[in-house]
């Protein structure tokens, strides 16, 4: 089966611009999670979508937003980009809540803000 796919793999933006990142979960997975992996900071939870609804969000400002489409794919939007937004953005999906089976991660989108 196809894994979690993310696009684009790399994205370069200038400060103040907007970035849109996309994620397609594994077929049958209804939950999508977004994490930011900045250098030296580990994975920081951004957003969780399930069945088209935002279920939880991490401690990030409102300029980080997203949505989940009826086919369970998801978008992460980052407005008014700042230099510190440069990071690897990882999308993961799970069958059910991930409590026992964990997440399946994509390979990420490397966002560079200059």
């Amino acid at each position, binding site marked *: 089966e196809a894994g*979690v796919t993310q696009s684009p793999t790399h994205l370069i933006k200038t400060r103040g611009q907007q970035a849109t990142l996309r994620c397609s979960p594994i077929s049958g997975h209804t*939950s999508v*999670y977004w*994490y930011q992996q900045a250098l*030296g*900071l*580990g*994975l*920081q*939870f951004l957003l*969780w979508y*399930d069945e088209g609804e935002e*279920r*939880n969000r*991490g401690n990030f400002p409102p300029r980080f937003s997203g949505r989940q489409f009826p086919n369970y794919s998801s978008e992460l939007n980052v407005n008014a980009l700042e230099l510190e937004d440069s990071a690897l953005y*990882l999308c*993961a999906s799970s069958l059910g*809540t*991930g*409590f*026992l*089976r*964990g*997440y*399946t*991660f*994509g*390979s*990420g989108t490397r966002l560079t803000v200059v």
Partner: protein
Amino acid sequence: TQLLEQSPQFLSIQEGENLTVYCNSSSVFSSLQWYRQEPGEGPVLLVTVVTGGEVKKLKRLTFQFGDARKDSSLHITAAQPGDTGLYLCAGLRDNYGQNFVFGPGTRLSVLP
């Protein structure tokens, strides 16, 4: 402040050596998972532990969940260069919210 601490931060060893890495917290977790991440890739799930005191073995890897469900360890026997990567632990504090908290990771390098 990290909810999950991992140690050591970096570890470089020779092929064939044994090693243990640790994941510690002051919080209780209902579930704890270990992932390995290789450069340019997303983390890959290795194991899930849910019961205090639980020990799971995956070939040369042995995972243990602390009795109080606040800490965990990963032991690798006879490490191989293919074990090189970033080892992340992730804890689920409760079923509400459903997002795992990740530790900062231990970066392991196994030299041939």
